[in-house]
């Protein structure tokens, strides 16, 4: 819509000619200028500039729908709009499972089970619908070479023994999962671009990026000193738009890093002398998600994998459909399994913190 050429907009002739003469060829060109500057570029009066803006805006504006029409459309498309994870408690908390058309983030310290979770999701999306799957292909973008085919099939054989005993099914399922290993951010970007058409043509039902954070380290440290623009911002928009237009779930994993002084925690009106006491303990025990707050705003669902009190937990930290709740889990031969379907309610700072009490063999 933004790149819609002005020539196709059927504007009144005098406006069309004026815009063409000043080389304002797309909706973006016309609308990116404040009124006064547009007047200067067109060398025309305010009414003309306003008329041009009004016409172009009307055409470039996407059509509106009532929320009721949205609901009916979702109902028509069927499937409940979710990919069930088969982890009952988690599925219930998320309103059925991982939502289609939205970006879901899985974040946690290394070794906690994020990739195990992704492997299971990949399998589930490939399974036929009668077994609760999406019966489609899966694109798995593996930036850290962690994808293990052997492990995925082991998960399949142990979670769905009756399915995987069938002749040739393992091969068929594995054949539906396409693994890509980009070696640089540019590589990744190029693959994504090519993917938009491929996704629809080849019936891809799930896109996984494991992990997103690794892409920033693949990037050379180009000097963008002073620039606060996020290096992955293009990828972020693109993944969101792929999710929406293809109506598929997009799952992205994120790493953690220790807190640094650069992380703001409070608004100016909150800073009240309570800082110093909390600071010390905070830096010791807490981790934050890599990729920053801009990324955190952009994902629709955030699942935090963390460990404390001797157990590992999957915590629904951000979800429009449910309050924050955590489920203890373990990793078995059949993949991730919940130890309890009754979630533990989480409130306050525990929602956003990521705890990792690992077994430190050197500390013994």
């Amino acid at each position: 819509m933004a790149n819609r050429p002005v020539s196709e907009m059927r504007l009144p002739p005098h406006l069309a000619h004026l815009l063409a003469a000043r080389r304002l060829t797309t909706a973006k060109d016309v609308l990116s200028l404040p009124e006064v500057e547009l007047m200067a570029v067109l060398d025309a009066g305010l009414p003309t500039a306003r008329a041009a803006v009004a016409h172009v805006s009307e055409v470039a504006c996407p059509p509106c729908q009532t929320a009721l029409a949205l609901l009916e459309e979702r109902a028509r498309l069927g499937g409940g709009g979710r990919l069930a994870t088969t982890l009952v408690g988690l599925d219930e908390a998320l309103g059925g499972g991982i939502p289609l058309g939205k970006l879901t983030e899985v974040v946690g310290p290394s070794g906690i089970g994020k990739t195990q979770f992704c492997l299971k999701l990949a399998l589930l999306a490939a399974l036929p619908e009668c077994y609760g799957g999406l019966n489609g292909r899966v694109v798995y973008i593996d930036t850290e070479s962690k994808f293990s085919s052997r492990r995925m099939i082991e998960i399949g054989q142990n979670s769905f023994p009756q399915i995987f005993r069938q002749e040739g099914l393992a091969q068929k399922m594995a054949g539906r999962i396409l693994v890509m290993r980009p070696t640089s951010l540019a590589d990744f970007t190029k693959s994504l671009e090519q993917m938009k058409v491929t996704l629809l043509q080849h019936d891809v039902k799930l896109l996984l990026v494991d992990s997103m954070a690794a892409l920033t380290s693949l990037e050379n440290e180009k000097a963008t000193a002073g620039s606060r623009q996020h290096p992955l911002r293009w990828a972020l928009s693109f993944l969101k738009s792929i999710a929406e237009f293809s109506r598929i779930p997009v799952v992205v994993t994120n790493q953690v890093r220790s807190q640094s002084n650069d992380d703001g925690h409070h608004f100016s009106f909150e800073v009240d002398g309570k800082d110093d006491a909390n600071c010390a303990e905070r830096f010791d025990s807490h981790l934050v998600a890599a990729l920053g707050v801009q990324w955190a705003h952009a994902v629709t669902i955030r699942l935090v994998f963390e460990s404390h009190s001797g157990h590992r937990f999957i915590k629904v930290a951000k979800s429009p459909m449910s309050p924050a709740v955590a489920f203890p889990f373990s990793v078995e031969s059949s993949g991730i399994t919940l130890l309890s379907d009754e979630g533990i309610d989480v409130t306050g700072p525990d929602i956003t913190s990521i705890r990792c009490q690992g077994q430190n063999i050197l500390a013994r």
Partner: protein
Amino acid sequence: MASSGDPPLLAGAQNAWDMLSDEQSQKHITTGSGGINNILGGGIHCKEVTEIGGVPGVGKTQLGIQLAINVQIPVEYGGLGGKAVYIDTEGSFMVERAYQIAEGCISDILEHFPHSHEKTSSGQGKLQPEHFLAGIYYFRICSYTEQIAVINYLEKFLGEHKDVRIVIIDSVTFHFRQDFDDLALRTRVLSGLSLKLMKLSKAYNLAVVLLNQVTTKFTEGSFQLTLALGDSWSHSCTNRLILYWNGNERYAYLDKSPSLPVASSPYAVTGKGVRDSVSSNGKRVRVM
């Protein structure tokens, strides 16, 4: 307009006494939480632009959807009986959640007006979640060009849909942060947009609510959270509400208002939507 019948001294001006009666008759849209309504002086004001910002996950979209539902509370139950325009720039609007929030609002209405089921069938028809969803005009915006286009187009749209009483943009930040490289130009474009929105709110007597994200800023020797889009933008809105975590509770802080003192109030996000937090006072929740 002038009460004394004298010709106005300045064309287009209104004297303060007349404005006072306008201000007093101004309608508010309840947020669902009595506490937040109080610090706002009754609720979200029509004819004003209110910015609501906060960290990810604190409940901005929840409040946006709640307002889109609450603006539709029929006049006979104390609401405005208006419709909502919801401009979604990030894809955060989940229609199933809007349905839940509509159900929650209806159940609160029925609790406070227990005899309403005896009303006529047309009255009954209004108290269905589907009816509330039909009253939300939803735009999905995928770039800053589209965002500028929809705000420009609103003038015509609102002229054709005079029952709209709230316009919500969720979030105003996303595309401008993502894709706008020239920061100076961005500031000028944003200020043009905020002026337009202010004019629309006054001309059509509706509330404009802009949801904003947070960023970090180096002030007073440390990095602090602040709302995104820069200092110039922070001047653009009439009212600013910041949602944040205080211990285990969600709080709303009125950071900027032309007539009310800064104040904060706890609130909660429940299955029914935005409500008062249980621990704040023992009183029953009032939606109206």
